[in-house]
Every structure is written in C-alpha cells, then in structure tokens.
C-alpha cells in the first residue's frame, strides 16, 4: 500500500530500521521491482537501499520528509543496478526472451516440470497475469519515475519536480508521454 500520513512525522527523528521496514519496506520493494523487473534483483536492491539508509543516516538532515529521502535513495540504487554490467547482460537475455515470447495459445500448452528453478524463473518471466505491471516495468526509467510518484505515491507535480530535480513542465510532459504509452490501461474520462 502507498505510504500513509503517518510517515510524514518521522522527519528529523532518529532512524529505526524496524520502523522503516514497517512503514516503507513494501513500498521500497515494489519500487525496486518496477525499476528492475525481476524479483531477485529487487530484493538485492532492497537490501542495498536499507544498508545505505542505515549506514548513511548521518547524511539525513531531517529538514525533509524521510519518505522522500528514502525514495530518492531507492531510485538511485535501482538506476545504479540498471547501469551495471550484470544488468546489461541480463537485459540482453531478457530481450531475447521477449522476442521468443510465446503467444497466449502457446502458454496454455506449456506444462513446466515442477521443482526446476530455472524453469520456475522462466515461468515467472512468462507469467503475464499482471499486464499493467508489465507495461509499467517496460517503460523507460524517466517515465517510471513520474508514473510511480504520481499514481502510486500520490505526489503532485510540484513535489515530483522537487524530488526528481526537474521542472514541473517536464513532469507534465513526461506524464503525458507515459500516459500515451499506457493508453491501453487508461480508462476513458480519467
């Protein structure tokens, strides 16, 4: 679930990892999952995010909401993962898988053997039961930023602009382009 109003009261407080887990753990893991597409990578990034938060807690000035500070760290960690050589190799493999992605009729005919982790991963990859999540994951990073902050964390354009260090007009244009890409999931009247 998105962060509630309770998190805003943590600004300037001494950071407690258990409290951060309780308040923001799921949100950070979901954000990492959107950026990195894979659950395993998202879990690795999740650990790195909280390690950085706890080892660099001295850099938190307390003048802003701890939620935004935590989100900026999570975003930077995910972008670092995407820039890494490992991600470039796996992305190349992911592209190959995408090109060989079976059709819906082919999926029904595939019956994987249970207990094989490699096949489990492939099934996880092939599982398109959540098309909206897959569509958001496939967006470029700059569109993921605005979509997540605007529609998951319920931030307005000004807050998004401040969080990303860009202007509000840029936020609006990115939202427009992302919306265009996700037009299939947009209901009329929104």
């Amino acid at each position: 679930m998105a962060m509630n109003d309770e998190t805003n009261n943590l600004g300037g407080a001494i950071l407690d990892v258990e409290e951060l887990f309780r308040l923001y753990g799921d949100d950070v893991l979901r954000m990492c999952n959107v950026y990195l597409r894979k659950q395993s990578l998202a879990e690795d990034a999740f650990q790195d995010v909280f390690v950085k938060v706890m080892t660099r807690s001295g850099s938190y000035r307390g003048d802003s909401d701890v939620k935004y500070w935590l989100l900026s760290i999570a975003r930077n960690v995910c972008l670092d993962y995407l820039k890494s050589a490992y991600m470039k190799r796996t992305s190349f493999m992911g592209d190959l898988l995408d090109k060989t992605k079976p059709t819906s009729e082919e999926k029904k005919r595939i019956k994987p053997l249970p207990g094989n982790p490699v096949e489990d991963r492939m099934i996880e990859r092939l599982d398109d039961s959540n098309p909206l999540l897959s569509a958001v994951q496939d967006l470029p990073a700059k569109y993921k930023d605005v979509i997540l902050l605007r529609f998951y964390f319920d931030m307005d354009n000004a807050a998004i602009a401040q969080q990303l260090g860009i202007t509000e007009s840029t936020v609006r244009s990115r939202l427009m382009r992302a919306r265009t890409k996700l037009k299939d999931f947009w209901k009329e009247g929104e």
Partner: protein
Amino acid sequence: MFGDDLKKSLEPIQASDELLAKTRLAIEKARLEQAAQTMRAKKKSRSLSMIWKIGVPVACTALLVGGAVLLLPKLNHKDATKEVTFSVHGTKEDVSDIDLYEDSNFTAATDNREESVYETTVPEAETTISHSKQAGFDKAEESFSPMAVDVDGMWTNATEQHFDLTRIYFGKYVLCIAEDGKSLELHDAKTDALISEDENLEIPQIRNLPEDRFIYALVYEKENGSLMITTADSIHPLDVTILDFYMCTCTYENGRLICDEPNYITSSGI
C-alpha cells in the same frame, strides 16, 4: 482509476520476513565494517597526530644539536685563531706559553703561525742558549760565563760546570785560599799537596786582615801579572754583604813565583 489499478497490481509484492532478516544481517555487517573503517581512520589520524606531537619536537631538537655540533668546532677555531693572533703581537712573556701551542691540535695554517711566533720570540728571550747551540760549549765558555751559586756555596756558570774563583794555577803550583779563609796557600797542582814557602816561592799574604774578614775570591790577570784578592765579611757567599778589594803583582817565571804585598784598594756593599 489508473492509480488504483497500479496499486492493486503491486500489492502482491511484499517484503518477506526472510528478506527483512537478510537485510538486518546486511545492515549489521555494514555497520561492523563501517566501525572497523572508523577505527582504522582514527588510528591513522592518531598516529599522524603523534608524529606531529612527538616527531616535530624531536626533529627540532635534532636540528639544534646538529647545528651546535657543526658550529662549535668553527667557533673554537675562531677562538684559537684569535689567540694565535694575540701571540704574534705579544711580548716575550708569551714565550712561556709555547708548550700550550705545541700540545694543541691546530690546522696547518695555525701551525705555520705558531712556528713564526717561536722563531721570532725565542732568540730575544734566550740569546745565550741559542748561541751555545750554534757555537758549541767551549766557545760559549770563553765568551760568556754567567755565574751562580750552587747549594754548596760554589760558584758555577750557566753551563753548570764549576768555575773556581778560589784557585789560580801557576805552572805546577796552584795558589788557593786556606780553609779558614784567613790566608793563601800554595799546593801542588797534580797532588794538591801543601807546599811550604821557600826562597823561590813567595805567597802573597794580607797583613792585618780583620777578624771579621775572610778571603773570598782570587782573580789573576796574566798579561800584567796583577792579582786581585777579594775579602768578604762572611766565608759563605750567600751571607756576604761587604766586599774588600786588595791588589798585588805576581809573576811566575822559571819555576819562581814572586809576589809583593797586597794593598787595600776599595770596598763595596752588596
């Protein structure tokens, strides 16, 4: 609504207890590493500060000691140079300090100066020694006879060889002062036996010699045959305060000694 749909699609993704446990472990590990790094940094900074606190004073002290070690010999050399310069312009009383210069470890230049001091001052102070060294003992004895009195009351010259003023040789005879200092005696020059007066041997005698006077010395001048007899108020040379002089003529030819009576000439005080 798009937002609600997105939230519903992400809702199944939740941080499991296993993931949270792994994350706690990673955090603790990172904290330990951070603490170790902090300790290493503090040790490094402490060692650096120790270097500054201890090393700098030690280095300064070493520099001071080294500078002193380098400068002190130069200062000593300057003092020695001043001393040598003073000696060059000094009086002959400085000659007594020559031994000091000979024992010093001066440089070659300083030694040259020292030699010049020795050469210029020593001849002024000890002319006789220099002369005797150059001319030999015999010539020195002929030309110069500095007199002194030894512990036995005998006259000696500067070469420490006895120069007897109590004896005058006339051929095989020797005229000498009697032991009591009241008369003159004639002895054989070889055997030193006392020879009595006879017609061929006339021994000069001072008549009416006062009791408090003793014959002190004899000086004979061969060219004119004059004999000077000196009497003193004491038989011991060191106690003499008054000298009386008598003169007579003595000739020695063909084994004959002829002397007339001594005449009183003068007296002097010492």
